[in-house]
Each structure stands twice: as structure tokens, then as C-alpha cells.
């Protein structure tokens, strides 16, 4: 069943989180998540890209021992993509559950990543799931599914991302418990970089400092400043023998902007922190 689904859902993946993912709690987010899960409240993770939202979800799924279904939302994602549709097979029609329906049926954790990317009419289908009814209505089959207590809906949302055209509707956002994610404090970020990349602490310390400096430019023409993920990428490149300057160019300066001036300034900052 699940393999079949994997093949059918182009935007989603299903996984039992078997190995414990590394996640370093920054605040009380784990407690809050536990409470929300117990109280059957849907959760919204807010924050910039690359600060550990997805990792957090994986860690929580592992903690709860539930399968995790992740849907990467995009602007062509329709309600049928989430709920399911009839397919034509050998001259007959077969109903195929979408990832959300499957998650409700099996009591999995469903994670809708970057929900703002989905079309507004699509996000509305999650509404009945997110209030105390916790029901999912499949119009085409006439079914009404009641979500079991194990089911949990999580969405992620990046408030700084893109334009206000893609903002989440208030009627949608007000159905969630929001957990804020931001760049981790320096000490924690240092731990994360060391753990994820295996780089020495001295280099990790310099990367943290670099990240802080580049983040100062977030209101000067930089869409999204250097995330923890990018710092980890740079650390991994350094760890595998690429010179720190080159690694930071490849993993940080070039990916975060196309603007020549900003890129030059970021490169200057890199050369301030790392020697040849």
C-alpha cells in the first residue's frame, strides 16, 4: 500500500522515521509540540528557511513513533492532490487516496511544507481537519473520515519569504498553534554545525560569526540571509578539504543572492573571517 502511494504522490513522501534525527532544542518547542499533540491541536512552524523546521518535524515524528508524510507545497498543488482522485485503470475507475487522506486514515503525522506556496483554495480543504471536528470530507466518494487521535497536522510557513501576495489567510492561520523558529543563538548554532558536519570547533566558531555578520544585511537587499543549513553545508565542504574561503563562496555567498554588490560585500565578509 505505502509503496504504491509513494509512486502516486508526486509531491509527497511517506517515511517511518527510523533513525533518530539530530535535533537540538532551542527553547520550549518540544514541550509545546508534545502538549499540542496530546490536545490534538494542529501546529504551525513559522520561521525563515534553513533553521530546522523540517528537522524538528522529523525528530518529533520519531519521538512519537508515528509515520511522517511530508508534502512540499507548490502553486499547482490542487485539493485533489492532497485528498485523492479517481484514476482510470483498465477501463474502470479506482479511488486513490491523496497524502492527506492517507495520513488521516492511518493516523500519521502530515507535514505540509511551505503551505503559502499552495493555492489559496487548496489550503481551505484543511479547515475542517483543524477545528474540533477533526474530520475530512471526501466529496467525490462521499466519505467523511474522522481523524484518529494519533493524526497530527503540521504546516510550515516562512513569513519573510516572497511577497505579501503569498500570505496565509487569517482564517487559515488562526487554526494553528504557532511555534516560532529563528536562527539559533551562537552557542547552539556552534553545536549544531559541529554535530552536523564534524568540523572542528574553531572553524565552527568562525562560521557562526560569519553567519551573524551576513544576517545583518537581511534588510539591505538580501532575501534570506545565511541560514544554519548553509553554514552546515559550508562546514561539510571545509571538512572534506575545500579551503574555507572557497567553501563559503560556494555554499553561502553564491546561493543567497544574485546581486553583484551584495555578493561582493558577502565575499568581503568571508575574507574577513577566513584566511586563504
Amino acid at each position, binding site marked *: 500500500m505505502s509503496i504504491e502511494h509513494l509512486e502516486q504522490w508526486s509531491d509527497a513522501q511517506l517515511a517511518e522515521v527510523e533513525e533518530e534525527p539530530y535535533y537540538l532544542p532551542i527553547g520550549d518547542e518540544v514541550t509545546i509540540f508534545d502538549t499540542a499533540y496530546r490536545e490534538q491541536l494542529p501546529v504551525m512552524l513559522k520561521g525563515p528557511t534553513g533553521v530546522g523546521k523540517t528537522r524538528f518535524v522529523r525528530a518529533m515524528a520519531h519521538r512519537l513513533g508515528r509515520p511522517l508524510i511530508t508534502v512540499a507545497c507548490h502553486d499547482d498543488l490542487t485539493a485533489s492532490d492532497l485528498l485523492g482522485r479517481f484514476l482510470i485503470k483498465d477501463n474502470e475507475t479506482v479511488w486513490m487516496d491523496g497524502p492527506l487522506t492517507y495520513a488521516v486514515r492511518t493516523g500519521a503525522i502530515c507535514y505540509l511544507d511551505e503551505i503559502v506556496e499552495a493555492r489559496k483554495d487548496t489550503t481551505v480543504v484543511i479547515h475542517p481537519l483543524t477545528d474540533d471536528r477533526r474530520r475530512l470530507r471526501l466529496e*467525490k466518494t462521499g466519505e467523511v473520515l474522522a481523524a484518529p487521535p494519533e493524526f497530527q497536522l503540521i504546516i510550515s510557513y516562512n513569513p519573510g519569504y516572497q511577497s505579501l501576495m503569498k500570505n496565509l489567510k487569517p482564517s487559515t492561520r488562526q487554526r494553528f498553534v504557532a511555534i516560532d523558529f529563528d536562527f539559533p543563538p551562537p552557542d547552539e548554532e556552534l553545536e549544531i554545525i559541529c554535530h552536523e558536519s564534524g568540523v572542528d570547533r*574553531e572553524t565552527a566558531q568562525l562560521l557562526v560569526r560569519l553567519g551573524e555578520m551576513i544576517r*545583518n544585511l537581511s*534588510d539591505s537587499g538580501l532575501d534570506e540571509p545565511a541560514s544554519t543549513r548553509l553554514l552546515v553545508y559550508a562546514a561539510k565542504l571545509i571538512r572534506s578539504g575545500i579551503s574555507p574561503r572557497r567553501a563559503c563562496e560556494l555554499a553561502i555567498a553564491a546561493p543567497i543572492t544574485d546581486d553583484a*554588490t551584495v555578493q561582493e*560585500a558577502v565575499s*568581503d565578509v568571508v575574507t*574577513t573571517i577566513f584566511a586563504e
Partner: protein
Amino acid sequence: MIRDWFRKLNPTRPKKPAEPEQPVTSLAFADVESTLALYVKAISDSRLKVMSNTLARQGAYTDGRTIFVPPEVDMFDDKKQARLFYRVTSAWKVMQLASGTLDLERVPDPNEDREQFLYYEILSGEWVDRTLVNLWPGLAPNIELMRRDALARRSQNGHRTGNLEPLIQSLLRLPIDHQPETDEIRRVAEEFPQKNGELRDMLLATGDMLRIDEPGQCLKLAFEFSAGNGKIDESTLPQAVHFRGRIRPDLLKPPEITIEDIKTDDKPASGSRRRPPPRSEPLLVDSNEPMPMQRRNRKSPTGGRQSMQISLADREPARTFHTVPLTEEEKKGAHLYHEWDYLREMYLPEWNALRTRRPKSGSTDKVDQILRQHTALIRHLKQQFEALRPERMRLTRQLDGDELDLGAYVDSQADQMAGLSPSEKLYSKVDEKERNIALACLIDLSGSTGAWIDDDPRNDQVIEVIRRGVVFLCEALTVLDDRHAVYGFTGSTRKQSEFSIVKEFDESYGETVKGRMNGLGPGAYTRMGPAIRHAVHNLTMQSARVRILMLLSDGRPNDFDGYGGRYGVEDTRKALIEARQSGVNTFALTIDGEARDYMPYMFGLGHYMVIEDTPALATRLSEVYRRLTVQ
């Protein structure tokens, strides 16, 4: 680790100062400004700006908010080196401030003890070099290079005399990649035979100082040196080490004169370099009870503002100056506007004389500087505005359209076979949206815009932030077809409302307009009613689907002749109601922390924005416009 990097250093000699017959390569600050501004912002935690100043030709300096660097660098025969010099000297100044060596209690007062100050400059400079190399190891090779370059230039000039020069040169000879060993110090001291002994002692003491992570020791040692070495001959005063520049304790002091002081004292301390902008006082006074312009101290708990909370129930007695119509003389050449008298609940016809003027267009240096310092941001804003361009979008699953929607067709076939009623929405079509917007941006140019942010003269004046905001908006709008005008307003009394046309709808955003933006400066009072009425009048002459009036303000409506308090608020509110009735959307951005007392009443909830962080006004203006006009 640092040592390894040093080994990789290219051991070439530093560039020699250009010989007169050699072509001198010069790099202007303007060429590096946009990158350097971002660089300094990044490494200083957004605390510092960078600007050029001719006074910095002898060495960069800072006042704690801005780093002043030379307008051009021509001592290298290579632009790359010159660019590096700009970067290193700026980074050095950032570190000098961040490391605490410029904390006022640390810097000796040169007027009290000049020797101690000079020693402190040298010793703390050496200390900052090492701190910088430790914290920002990437710059270590550059600092090393600059030290050698400085030393080469100094020894070439043959200065080895005086008390200070030998100390500077021998310190520059010490290695930077590790704490100097006693042997190394002895060897360096021997290069100055005539002062070997005392120099050795000084260097040894300095070596101890350099081992400490905290700059406090610099001051102690400077005190010892100055006490032990006596007066310094002014003729042997050494030049600044080029990449370190100078310490300017006079600029580091928090401002002594605040605007409040001037008000009570009216005599700015003579010789002060910093004066608050002159405030134009109205000449004609036809009221016996003038309402003073408000001055703010944003740091005080109340924001320093006179509290004028409007109680909508209170009724002020009618004032006599509300009864005399304008004379023919006063009406001449003016646009006449009515005014709402809330006390009598009636319009006073032809009550305001508003005169339009086109400010003289002159130099565009301020605008050019804004463009240079914010190239990246402006490009970013333009990109964001480009997203507002009407785009051709193919709408799927439509009842009718120019093409069959294959996905919809397949779904409907499947539904039909499953025995469901299939959807009829099987077509797709192209949807073209049109913007057709006219915007009038109305700027409050009252005297209070001359105030410095947080009343600290080292910060920008409010008017500078407003100028920046207007430039950003006009730059961003160049990618759209939205018609827009920029107006400023000020004035004193109803007889002299002044309406400056910075950019009219049909004018293009070019040198003339930029020159006018350049010249925007603080005026007198804030009589909002007539200015809004005139801007709305101009807006309604534009044929557009959507008309928007955006007001940029720093305070409540206020004029000299009783147009304050509730009266001004009521007339402004009425003017805005008239605007909405004639189909103009209104929105206000204000930096007045007390705006919540009156803005909801004037503009309505959701139609204004209070910006607590004044410098953010510059980008908010464009952001708000973008948000208002997203389709």
C-alpha cells in the same frame, strides 16, 4: 592555525609610494561605496555607517556612528590595493569601536594630557591590530601587509626622531601572528641604537599589555609612558599609521547641545561644529496664543511630547481668529480651500490660501549618495516591484476559455466513469490584469523633520530618512507604469500654506526631480487640511482606476494660528473624508509614537502605520505601497 596562513603569505615587498613620474592610480570612495556600506553594516552589527570626508585624508576617524574615510586613496599603484585599504581601514575602525578602546572613560582627554593621549593612540592601535587578527583571522594577512606598508613608508621618509616615531616603528616591526617574545623585542629595540635602552623597556611593557584581552591596560601604560618621558616636541609629532587613522575624542562625546537646550538658552555654544538645523519662526502672528512646535525627546518615558490626547467630548471655546476672512491681497495667486470648523460644525469657505511652488533644482549630491549607498537595496526593491507588473496568467478549470484544460478533462472523464457528475469547467484562459494606478505621495516638511533621530546629532535627521524613502519609492516605481507625484507641504498660518511640487504626475523622474528631492528641507508648521485637499484635487484630475494618497508625517496636524489640538485633527479628518468621497484611497505613515492617539480617528484603523524605528521609514514607504497595490 593563523601561523600556517602566514607562511602562505606572499612575501613580496609592499608597494612603494608612487614616484612623482609614475602615473598615480587613484580610487574614489564612490567606486567602492555601495559594497563598503554593506560590508561595514555586516561586520558592525548594523551599528555603523561609512562616509567619506576630506578631513579623513590624514587618516580615517569615527564619531561612534559613522566611519569617515578619505574621499580617494591614491597611495597605491594598484586599484586592488586601494580597495583593500578601504576595506581594512573600515574594518579596523569597526573593531576599534567594538573592542572598547574608544569608550569615553578610556580615551584620555588630549586637552588635559596631550602626551598621554598620543601614547594611548599608539598603544591601543597596536592592541586593536592584534585583537582584530584574533577575532577576524581572514584579515590577518591584510593587516600584516598594511603594517609592512606603513613601516616602509615611514622609514622611507627618514623619520626616526622624536619620542613617538621610534616607538611606532619598532612596534610595527614586531610580529603580529604571535605574542612577541622577549628576544624579538630586544632585537627590534637594537635597531634604534640611540634609544635602545628606554625603547627596550617600553617595548617589553607593551608586550605585556598585548597579552591582556582587555584594553584597560593601554590607558595605564599610556599614563606611565607620558609620565616617564616628559613633553613631546610638537614639531616631531608623527603622522597617523595610515590604515589605523586617528582617534577623535571631540567627536566621540555624546552631544552636549540638544534641541531642548537651545530652546531655553537660544545661544548655541560658540565654536560648536554641530548645530541643530535652523527653525524658521513664523513672521506673522495673528494669535495671542501660539501653539509651540513640539520638540521631542524620544527617550523620555512620555516620548517628550506634550500630551494632547484628544478627548472627543471636550469642547474648546471658539477663538477669535476663526472669524476674519482672507483679504484680497492674501488670496492673490493662491489656491483657496475651505476648512472645517468642528466647533461650529461648518465649513469656513475660502479659508486657506495655498501656494504651489516648484523647489529650485540644484545639485543632486545627496540623492546620488543615497543611490550609491543603497544600490543593492534599490535593486531588490525594483525586483519586488517587478512582481507587481500585471502578468499574463493562465487560469485553469474555467467555464469557458480559449483552450481545453487537459487535466480538467481527464478528471471529468474519470469522475463520469465513477458515476459522479463531471465538472463543466474544462477550459483554460489567459487573464490579463491592468494596474492603472495614480499615487500622490505627500510629505510633511514641518520644522520637526529637522530633528535628529533620537535627538542625537550623530544620527541622521528625520528629513534625510524621508528623502531616502522618497528616492527608494521613485526608483522602485521606475519598473512600473504607475503614475505618481511627490509633494511636500509646510507653511505657517492659513494665509501661507506652502505646497512644493517635487515631482508632478507628468514629470519624469530625472535630474531635475532628483535635484528637487535633494533640496527638500525642514520648513515650519504642519497644516495638513489644505495640503491634503490640494493633493486630492490633483489626484482626481488623473484618469486612473485606483487613486492613492500616501502621507508621510512625523507628527500631528499643527499650525501657529490655532490649527492644533482637536481643531487640526478634525479638519484633517474632514479633508480625508472628502478624499475618500472623491474616490481617493488614503494611507499614512508616521514616526510619531503618539500617533495612535489621533491617527485611527483621522485615517481609520488599518489605514496608517506607526513606524517606531525611524530609519526604517525609508524602506517601509515602498513596502507599504507594494502591499497596497498587490492585485
